[in-house]
């Protein structure tokens, strides 16, 4: 039972001052084992804050990040799943499933986490799942007009993942979940 937090596009302090208070009260240290961040934090203080929640932090570089040394993409293995992170501004058209699927095949991961659109989505296609945790601060976006603060928490348990989606709608935290299982068929190299 591994808890992985996925969030990004906070745009602190350019477009948003801070995470919503209700989110911050829930994100306490000690519960989460890994954090995957899609990028655009943007300042170092946010990085430090995320480290206090969990020391195992994986960040991909967003176009506004002040830290230039984050990688463009990153992959990691948690349990039976391979996860990949990328900010998403590199993949055009932004938010398009087919292009993201290409990236997923390139990285050879089961779960791809990207951002940039500031909108939560979770897609499934043959190669795996693409999750966009949205913007954790609800920062202004040039792509979408209606941005609700959101982030994602994945509970990885053997071959099953439960994705909990946390959204702040009208000042209240709403939680939904998505279930999926990884098929055990091994990938055959083409």
């Amino acid at each position, binding site marked *: 039972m591994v808890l992985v937090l996925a969030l990004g596009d906070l745009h602190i302090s350019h477009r948003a001052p801070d995470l919503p208070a209700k989110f911050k009260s829930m*994100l306490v240290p000690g519960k989460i084992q890994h954090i995957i961040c899609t990028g655009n934090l943007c300042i170092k203080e946010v990085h430090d804050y995320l480290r206090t929640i969990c020391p195992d932090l994986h960040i991909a570089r967003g176009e506004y990040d002040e830290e230039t040394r984050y990688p463009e993409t990153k992959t990691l293995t948690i349990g039976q799943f391979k996860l990949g992170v990328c900010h998403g501004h590199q993949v055009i058209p932004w938010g398009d499933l087919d292009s993201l699927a290409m990236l997923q095949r390139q990285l050879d991961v089961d779960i791809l986490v990207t951002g940039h659109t500031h909108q939560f989505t979770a897609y499934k296609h043959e190669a795996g799942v693409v999750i966009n945790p949205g913007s954790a601060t609800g920062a202004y976006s040039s792509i979408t007009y209606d941005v609700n603060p959101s982030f994602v928490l994945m509970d990885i348990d053997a071959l099953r993942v439960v994705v909990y989606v946390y959204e702040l709608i009208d000042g209240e935290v709403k939680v939904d979940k998505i279930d999926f299982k990884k098929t055990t068929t091994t990938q055959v190299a083409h």
Partner: protein
Amino acid sequence: MVKKRVPDWLNSSLWSSPHPPSPSPYDDGEDYRLRRSSSAAESTVQPPVPVPPPSATRPEPPKVEIRDRMNDSSDNGGSGSGTPSVEDISRQAQLVQELSRKVINVGELRRLASQGIPDGAGIRSTVWKLLLGYLPVDRGLWSSELAKKRSQYKHFKEELLMNPSEITRRLEKSTSSENEESKCGTRGLLPRSEITQGEHPLSLGKTSIWNQFFQDTEIIEQIDRDVKRTHPGMHFFSGDSQLAKSNQEALKNILIVFAKLNPGIRYVQGMNEILAPLFYVFRNDPNEENTAFVEADTFFCFVELLSGFRDHFCQQLDNSVVGIRSTITKLSRLLKEHDEELWRHLEVTTKVNPQFYAFRWITLLLTQEFNFADSLIIWDTLLSDPEGPLETLLRVCIAMLILVRRRLLAGDFTSNLKLLQHYPSTNISHLLYVANKLRTQSAY
């Protein structure tokens, strides 16, 4: 002013010689030891006389003796004599006989066990289970009782040691029907579903299983740390061997289940030390059937044993009538009753507050003061004495003080404290004998 001095019998030359066996072991219990000591005091020491077992002759003694030697060498250290005395063998035979009855006479069992349970026949496990009330006295009921308790423990484990992911999964299975499994090849948005009962991992609600789980993790970590530190010198408990690891796992499970079932007291450091001897004894039961269920048996016996001492572990009760401070005060009062000179010297002159040494003696039931094998023998007495473990424990503590009284009377604060916190190894049967005598000598 007449000071209450140590009674003369304590200063007699009796202590330098072994006690001769009594001619008839089946005399009334209470006077048993007194009669022995008085007969010894009158006559000079006699060589041990072989005592015929009371019932029809059984072929026990020669076989038993060989096993005794084997067991003695495998036990970590031993008390007093290495080879079992004739007394031990006869007592063992009596115990075995008592245990083989259809309905066991607990009073008789207590009497026999309080003199120490010999290691030979591997009966300590069964005797302790009877003394703690885990096994009923009627042998016929044993299998049904054991089956009931063991399945209950299994149930506890399944319920309490499940992590929240599994719990939510089971909840879902029972409430909603299985969603259409998306097959490979379909693409599109993954369907969102509602969470069951507002349960999510970051929930801060008091009734949330996730929140409780995270709060319990702290305790589980504490238990884990303490279990790893239990008896680091013993291969049974510590080290990298498969045996040690599985034993540690079992100890952890028992303590976690206990903590979850008792939210009022949870886990307190020290409970692992009380659990360890129980587990050791039950795990070394020669009966294979019992060792398969050692966790369940140990759990219930642990609960039973701890029930008399729970209040010592509860911090809020420290200053109350049932708390540890009150027990220590009782100890102090007992000491004053039995040996006022020592009491005065210790508490008034050298200002050794009993809390400095007795706290550990009492809360951990003397497991830390003697080597492991000796503490098992002390526990034989603690568990079998009809006065109850707490009263017996206090008497043993007083006996411990009295046995080193000469050194205490000659020492100052530092040396006395050092002595009592690192109690010197001593002849255990001697110690228990003194403790027993204190019972008959007390004012009431």
